[in-house]
């Protein structure tokens, strides 16, 4: 993982997975490069769809990194023709201020150099991938570091600018990108735009590129060394450590302890209030549930001809009495659940009605008690 700061900000992440190699190159690993122009960089970038600029940058980087053979692909092979590592480099552009290509190429090669893949052992046709805790991960073998340097030209090549900004890119006539490593080897060279370049111009640019590449490579090595030393010493490292804390735009908070004594009390209080509100008169049935007894009562009433149903029910149910049915009134039966009774008796008892057959004439009606596992769930 790496990030490059400037006015342009790019964030590169390398990840790897096992996959089958390409049939044309059975003993080579796969290097995949994906440049994401996030809408964070500029509102006109859309997520998900590759714009023309995105495709251009992606292709140029692919050519720069893959075709210069800077990463040894054969060392990524595990079983020839069956299993190789696929190394995926995701480059997220976070802030667009011109010259994304240079920034992305620096981030990509730094991330690839920094990346360590998990160790594997091959046992016959079995491949064992060791987790990082078990065996030390292995870095990729990077032969050299190609870095892109862009030049923009104005007025038919009369004026030349290194590292153009966003606004400068908008008015330029053309652009030349030179991909070069510190051994002065040109890996890519691309000229775009409507202009003609003199031979001298190209030579002059490549000379500038040599200086810039040497500087940048030194910077990358320094950053990687710092990280290695910090890891070896067990100090803090990574992105968190890269934030300068002495500016007014940053702020930090030491680990905060939460006072738990108050919490315990309020939990008990709020649970109590929920329980009370659930067992209030009139709302008792909300918390407790149970099947509807409406139809049952009608049928029982017909059968009993106005006799008290309560008496009969107590025979069939051995549990304490909680349901009082007032059958004197023919119109409506009221179920009253007493609050204190509900609290003392187990909550598990739920009255369940069972009809023998709904189509039969109403002569069979049973009341059953059914025990359910004690379980209450619900949000206050």
């Amino acid at each position, binding site marked *: 993982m790496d990030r490059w700061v400037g006015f342009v900000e790019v*964030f590169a992440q390398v990840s790897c997975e096992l996959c089958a190699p390409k049939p044309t190159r059975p003993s080579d690993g796969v290097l995949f490069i994906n440049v994401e122009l996030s*809408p964070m960089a500029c*509102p006109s970038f859309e*997520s998900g769809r590759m714009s023309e600029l995105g495709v251009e940058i992606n292709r140029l980087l692919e050519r720069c990194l893959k075709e210069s053979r800077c990463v040894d692909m054969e060392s990524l092979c595990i079983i020839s023709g069956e299993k190789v590592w696929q190394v995926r480099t995701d480059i997220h552009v*976070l802030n667009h201020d011109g010259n994304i290509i240079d920034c992305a190429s620096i981030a990509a090669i730094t991330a690839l150099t920094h990346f360590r893949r998990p160790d594997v052992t091959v046992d016959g046709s079995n491949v064992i991938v060791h987790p990082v805790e078990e065996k030390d991960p292995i870095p990729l073998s990077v032969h050299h570091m190609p870095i892109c340097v862009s030049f923009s030209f104005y007025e038919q090549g009369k004026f030349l600018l290194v590292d153009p900004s966003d606004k400068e890119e908008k008015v330029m006539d053309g652009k030349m990108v030179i991909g070069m490593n510190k051994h002065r080897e040109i890996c890519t060279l691309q000229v775009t735009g409507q202009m003609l370049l003199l031979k001298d111009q190209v030579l002059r640019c490549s000379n500038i590129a040599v200086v810039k590449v040497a500087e940048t490579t030194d910077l990358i090595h320094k950053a990687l060394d710092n990280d290695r030393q910090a890891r070896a010493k067990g100090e803090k490292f990574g992105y968190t450590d890269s934030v300068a804390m002495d500016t007014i735009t940053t*702020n930090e*908070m030491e*680990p905060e302890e939460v006072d738990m004594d108050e919490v315990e009390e309020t939990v008990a209080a709020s649970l109590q209030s929920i329980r009370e509100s659930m067992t209030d008169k009139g709302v008792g049935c909300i918390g407790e549930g149970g099947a509807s007894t409406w139809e049952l009562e009608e049928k029982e009433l017909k059968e009993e001809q106005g006799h008290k149903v309560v008496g009969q029910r107590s025979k069939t149910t051995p549990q304490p009495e909680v349901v009082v049915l007032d059958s004197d009134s023919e119109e409506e039966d009221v179920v009253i659940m007493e609050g204190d009774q509900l609290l003392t008796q187990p909550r598990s008892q739920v009255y369940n009605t069972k009809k023998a057959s709904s189509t039969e004439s109403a002569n069979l009606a049973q009341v059953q008690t059914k025990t359910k596992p004690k379980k209450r769930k619900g949000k206050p």
Partner: protein
Amino acid sequence: MEIPRSSGFQLRHMMCEFGQLSRPDGDVTVFQGDTSVTTAVYGPGEVRMNKEILNKATVETVFKPKSGLPGCAEKMFERTLRNTCETFLLAALHPRSSISIIVQEIQDSGSFLSCCVNSCCLALLDASVAMKFLVAAVTCAIDSEECIILDPTVKQEKDSCAVLTFVFENKDDSILAVYTTGSYTVQQFQQCSQTCGEASKAVFDFYRTSIEKKLSKAT
């Protein structure tokens, strides 16, 4: 590298940095322990015709995972964030405009959702978008011994039987949103919500000091 914590009832080290990016109207990088998220806000600004809403602003969220292309889970996460943000944004103040929030994952070492919500709130604050109130999210996990761990790391999240994220607002200190996975009892839920509620006060304090520091003149 994780710094060991003295107890489970502790929020990890929190940090934030404003103004790293030059293009967006507001941006912040929030660190909670090793979890870090960069959020940028554009808006209220021009809206695409097909997304225009006549009486309020369109709130868009984009979530960018660190590696790989966004799939179903990421879209779901995006939606979760959008729903949360829509509840506290005063979108009706800006009809026919867009407020877009872009969240970039930098590192996920646990309590990722709460870090994202917090960074969204700070980025919106930085962009001066009108809000009903501030929000703070706190994640807690219930481990196999039924202990509550505040602000869990990835490993703790994996080993736990439930992970609960609460979003609180600072007007009435009430719960705005709850996202949970796993199973828990009512008692545990109450305990978690109270614990996170206490912890959210620290997060609100952090917001205040961050903004105060940003608007101050000296370092």
